[in-house]
């Protein structure tokens, strides 16, 4: 039976068909749905871990324990999981293990544009990359075969357009696999120097065997269409190449990205007068071709930054400009904004009002950086709000001018250790934890603070207050407030910023998009009282506009959170 599946959904189907028993991941666009769909198959145990390192180690343990396992993450998540990643090639596996990593060329929803292929090379692990939903399933299954055949975890590389595109997939059934018996083998699994030295030799032997396999694997395919142009490509770029050249070029499509074949490429090169390498982000395949002594067209005409497209290839490789028209008037941008009723809005309004410098973090609340709130000074990576602020305060003093702002899920991911550092090293910074009871940005996943697991079971309700107290923050400087109570929020933030000790303000109100959050009737404008002062506009709610000296509220969007009413001194809202 053929079904239209999302790339990520098809990976999940592949996991199920491959008999996978254990899935542990941390959500991150564009990888999240793999694990969400995996959780819909009761034969696979699936969970959200607090971060990618934990997820990876859990999956490694499951694989060494003899069951096929998977962990999924976005590209930057692999940075977090890099420590176990590098050792996992040494220890090898028991049941097969696959790591799904989704890169985000074009940065649709990310803070950088890194190319995960470098990790496969550096950690000496095989990597496969599908180009559409059907291949997502097939390559996932092939990755498990490779993993067990060469006793190594395998990286499945995805990109946004493959993860988030639907195309037809032929479904098959699950093949159950028994959990392999446990064998104690410290030489293989206790990675202290004496053992690791021997294991490194094994890793190199596996890689040499894999390099031979790369010459013959069905994952690498050749389509011959004449001797002129030969395109070497992989993943989604193959799609763009096919649309651009059609039958006027031959294709070497690489499904196995590490190790790359040598003879296969040289043979292909020998048959074509011009070679073009098409790959998004870094010139990995191109450098490999150049090292083989080949002359290729690649990054000399194609960009290092951003996503590719058929349009881009046509323009850069064939010199064909698009034929299109546009209106003369300037089109204002439409950036994303915090939702109507978002619990973060009051926080950023208050921080901006108090003229505090804000060390931000990764999540919906990063949107507090855009006008009119414009409240955030810096955002680097998961958890960096607390730790980078600590450094800033150690060189500048000025603890009363700064706060760190971090979401509940991000705090559990990697904010904890930053807070420990503040306490341990005598910092006295203030951290605002935005507790919206969910992982909002990636589309509402549960986390250790929500009291529910991925598979829908109840979980212990961890208390942020108790955690912060246990980390050493003085109990009377751990304060919980409702961020929609602007007066109280301002008072508490002022007090804690002034306090000569580490402090935590927990801003607690659920995400406005949660189904459990009750909507109030929309706020009405009393046109008699409204003087058009625009104060209510300062909170940046997309429902409010002021035209002709009168405020107007879009009733179809307003959820009646009441924040704007607190802004109006004339009682018009």
């Amino acid at each position, binding site marked *: 039976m*053929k079904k*239209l599946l*999302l790339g990520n959904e098809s990976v999940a189907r592949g996991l199920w068909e491959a008999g996978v028993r254990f899935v542990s991941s941390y959500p991150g*666009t*564009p990888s*999240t*749905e793999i694990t969400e769909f995996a959780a819909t198959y009761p034969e696979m145990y699936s969970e959200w871990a607090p971060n990618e390192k934990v997820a990876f180690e859990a999956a490694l343990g499951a694989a060494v324990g003899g069951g096929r396992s998977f962990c999924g993450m976005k590209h930057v998540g692999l940075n977090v999981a890099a420590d176990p990643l590098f050792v996992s090639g040494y220890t090898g596996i028991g049941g097969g293990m696959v790591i799904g990593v989704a890169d985000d060329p074009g940065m*649709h*929803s990310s803070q950088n544009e890194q190319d995960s292929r470098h990790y496969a090379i550096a950690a000496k692990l095989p990597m496969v990359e599908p180009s*559409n939903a059907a291949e997502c399933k097939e390559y996932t299954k092939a990755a498990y075969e490779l993993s067990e055949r060469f006793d190594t975890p395998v990286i499945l590389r995805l990109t946004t*357009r*493959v993860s*988030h*595109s*639907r*195309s*037809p997939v032929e479904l098959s059934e699950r093949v159950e696999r028994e959990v392999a018996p446990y064998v104690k083998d410290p030489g293989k699994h206790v990675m202290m120097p004496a053992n690791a030295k021997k294991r490194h030799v094994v890793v190199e032997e596996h890689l040499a065997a894999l390099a031979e396999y790369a010459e013959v694997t069905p994952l690498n395919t050749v389509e011959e269409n004449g001797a002129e142009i030969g395109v070497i490509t992989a993943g*989604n770029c*193959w*799609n*763009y190449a*096919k*649309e651009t050249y059609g039958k006027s070029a031959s294709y070497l499509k690489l499904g196995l990205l590490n190790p790359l074949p040598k003879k296969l490429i040289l043979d292909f090169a020998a048959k074509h007068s011009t070679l073009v390498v098409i790959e998004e982000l870094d010139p990995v395949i191109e450098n490999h071709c150049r090292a083989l002594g080949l002359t290729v067209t690649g990054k000399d005409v194609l960009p290092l930054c951003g996503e590719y*497209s*058929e*349009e*881009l290839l*046509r323009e850069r490789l064939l010199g064909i400009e*698009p*034929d*299109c*028209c*546009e*209106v*003369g*008037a*300037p*089109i*204002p*941008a*439409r*950036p*994303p*904004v*915090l*939702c109507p009723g978002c619990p973060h809005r009051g926080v950023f309004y208050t921080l901006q009002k108090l003229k505090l410098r804000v060390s931000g973090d990764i999540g*919906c609340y990063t*949107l507090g950086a*855009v*006008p*009119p709130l414009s409240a955030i000074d810096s955002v680097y990576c998961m958890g960096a709000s607390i730790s980078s602020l600590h450094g800033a305060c150690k060189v500048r003093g000025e603890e009363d001018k700064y706060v760190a702002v971090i979401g509940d899920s991000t705090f559990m991911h990697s904010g904890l250790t930053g807070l420990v550092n503040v306490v341990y090293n005598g910092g006295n910074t203030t951290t605002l934890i935005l507790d919206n009871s969910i992982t909002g*940005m*990636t*589309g509402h996943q549960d986390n250790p603070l929500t009291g529910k697991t991925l598979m829908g079971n109840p979980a212990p309700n961890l208390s942020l207050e108790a955690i912060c107290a246990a980390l050493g923050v003085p109990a009377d400087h751990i304060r919980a407030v409702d961020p929609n109570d602007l007066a109280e929020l301002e008072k508490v933030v002022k007090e804690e910023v002034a306090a000569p000790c580490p402090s935590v303000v927990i801003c607690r109100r659920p995400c406005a998009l949660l189904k459990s959050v009750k909507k109030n009737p929309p706020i009405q404008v009393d046109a008699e009282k409204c003087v058009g002062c625009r104060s209510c*506009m300062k909170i*940046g709610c*997309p429902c*409010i*506009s002021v035209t002709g000296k009168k405020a107007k509220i879009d009733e*179809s969007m307003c959820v009646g959170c009441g924040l704007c009413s607190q802004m109006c001194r004339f009682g018009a809202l």
Partner: protein
Amino acid sequence: MSKNIMIVGVGGQGTLLASKILGRAAMDSGLDVKVSEVHGMSQRGGSVVTYVRFGDEVYSPVIGRGDADVILSFELLEAARWLPNLKNGGVLVTSTQQINPMPVITGAAEYPEGLLDDIKALGVDIRAFDAPAIAAEAGNARAANVALIGLAADALGFDTEILRNAVAACVPEKALEINMKAFDLAAARAAEAKRN
């Protein structure tokens, strides 16, 4: 040959359901299909675009400038933003709904006036309707996404029954009646507008 359709709008307007319906209709027509969606950041009220391509063989999941046969727009400013993607001779079906983006709300930019006339003046085959109003007539303004598909039905190139069945298969059970009504009403309005 493939047929290239773009669905554009504002995050939260229900563009994903529309693309799901078109993908389903293409599958049911026995064609190869690719539907490319946006998840993540821009769904928070930003400008969103979904690409639907179908035909005998489809590779690229996205549609470049000058390549869309049909653009289905949920909002007027978005129609203007994505107009360069319309093929010469393509059809632009748009809702006349206007939603101010944040730079307009804060006064940093203006919502351009007379967009419909500007687009018409370029010689574009534009078909503009008040989609939420048609959906409201059918029972719920939130069925505007299905109404838009009804409005574009003849330009999309599907067999009408296949398209209707795809709508029925993709909308939530409890909203089925209103959505079917919105679809039929919209298709009738489009046919009427064509006769005039």
